[in-house]
């Protein structure tokens, strides 16, 4: 079992309180700047000392505040790739890797280093010093160096590894990977599990798609950048039809039934921009609101339409091209798209 339960105060105001298990595969720690991602990873690696809690790696105790166990970083077998460049500047790429492979006999060391240089396409620059490498090569070298030591847990601190590099790492090592990132797409593409970290606390954890589609709280939804997040009061509840009527400031909608709430309660409602639909024609379908288009902005795979009342809808480029001359815009809120937090 690999489990992290630690508390750490960082003066003057920050404190980290986390409790989570690290499963096999890749676990993403998603949070914005100052969420505590680096503090968390440094605490696991042994560079920072937590005030309380326990860290277990494969059932071995790395840290236990109660029994004053604090293994030094060199005995934790945690590979660590820092946010900024950490290749030894006075050594070549090969020497950097040899430094990490010191515990093996000479021939074995040579074999492992050569294999890692080949795997990460570094053979051509093996005799180059880090300042002669471009940024992607530096990153590959840092990761290869961490992997050549055969870590039992690999910690990547916003080092810039993309999905293909993370996949490559998983082909090389069976060790679990904990990577900190502020890139939500990367979490969805490359992680098996995901932790939402804000101000030193875990807001939610689970499979990335599940977390992104179903934020458990307003804070989680805000952190995930859910654009449609509104307060509403419950005007009616109908458990037979499995529906509710929600009164917003400027319109009302039919939503799913909300167990555990009473009529008149105030709730937060979230809707992903991709789950809302544009409608046209008369009469409009139910749960449709007439809105004014404020702005349209191009994104990689879609166009984000921002309407009045801060409502956002994501549509494909084709659909936007078809509808861009619309004078009247109608947005449909399918009940299943409304998520009550």
């Amino acid at each position: 079992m690999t489990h992290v339960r630690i508390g750490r105060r960082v003066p003057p105001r920050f404190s980290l309180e986390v409790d989570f298990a690290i499963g096999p595969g890749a676990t993403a720690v998603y949070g914005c700047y100052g969420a505590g991602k680096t503090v968390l990873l440094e605490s696991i690696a042994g560079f920072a000392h937590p005030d309380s809690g326990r860290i277990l790696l494969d059932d071995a105790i790395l840290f236990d505040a109660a029994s004053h166990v604090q293994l030094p970083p060199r005995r934790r077998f945690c590979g660590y790739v820092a946010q900024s460049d950490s290749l030894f500047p006075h050594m070549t790429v090969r020497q950097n890797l040899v430094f990490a492979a010191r515990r093996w006999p000479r021939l074995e060391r040579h074999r492992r280093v050569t294999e890692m240089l080949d795997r990460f396409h570094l053979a051509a620059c093996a005799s180059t010093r880090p300042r002669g490498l471009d940024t992607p090569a530096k990153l590959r070298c840092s990761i290869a160096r961490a992997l050549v030591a055969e870590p039992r847990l690999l910690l990547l601190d916003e080092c810039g590894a993309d999905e293909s590099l993370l996949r490559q790492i998983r082909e090389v090592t069976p060790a679990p990977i904990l990577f900190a990132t502020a890139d939500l797409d990367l979490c969805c593409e490359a992680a098996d599990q995901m932790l939402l970290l804000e101000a030193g606390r875990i807001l939610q954890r689970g499979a990335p798609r599940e977390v992104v589609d179903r934020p458990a709280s307003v804070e989680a939804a805000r952190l995930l950048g859910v654009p449609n997040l509104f307060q509403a009061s419950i005007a009616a509840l109908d458990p037979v039809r499995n529906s509710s009527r929600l009164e917003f400031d400027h319109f009302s909608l039919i939503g799913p039934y909300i167990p555990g709430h009473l009529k008149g309660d105030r709730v937060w409602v979230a809707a992903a921009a991709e789950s809302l639909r544009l409608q046209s024609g008369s009469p409009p379908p139910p749960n449709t609101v007439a809105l004014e288009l404020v702005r349209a902005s191009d994104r990689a795979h879609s166009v984000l339409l921002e309407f009045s009342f801060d409502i956002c809808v994501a549509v494909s480029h084709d659909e936007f091209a078809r509808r861009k001359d619309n004078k009247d815009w109608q947005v449909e809120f399918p009940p299943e798209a409304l998520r009550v937090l």
Partner: protein
Amino acid sequence: MPVDWSPLWLSLRVAFCATVISLVPGLWLAWVLARRSFPGREIIQAIATFPYALPPLIAGTYCILTLAHSQYAFTWYIGVLAGAVGVFPLMVRGSRRAFQTRNLNYENAARSLGASEWRVFWRIALPCAYEPILAAAAIAFARVLTEFAAVVLIAFALTTGISPFPVALVSVIVIIALMAVYVSNRLEHEGHTHQ
């Protein structure tokens, strides 16, 4: 008139030996002060920095007083020792700053790769910081080489047998200077912390 070059060779020899001797413990102490936090750190830092604030005349007087109560004559070995003590703070300050300003990521990366503290020091910290350390050593060498006041003072005391300053006066000055150095170090530390 032929020039007697022997004092130059003597000065070079003394300066070189004093620099090398101060370098080894100076580097070690600088590393400890830069990377470790322990009780009494400020006091050790004040004592290590103290000779920096000590004027050569006072240092020379102390040398005379020490020699007067010992069986050793003033040989060049004593000069080396006095020089090493005199430039020790230069080495500590210069090297400590060099270690502190270097990227901690390198050392942490080495630790995570299984390197001991000894190996981190020799293979990573020292090669990464060697330029400012050599600069500090060069300044230390120049300082010992050009030190003249203490030499004149010692020569005067050895030839006349008269100590130029009363012992009590020197001691009071030294104690006040030590306290000032301690306060200076504390203020410097607080300044860094606030930044």
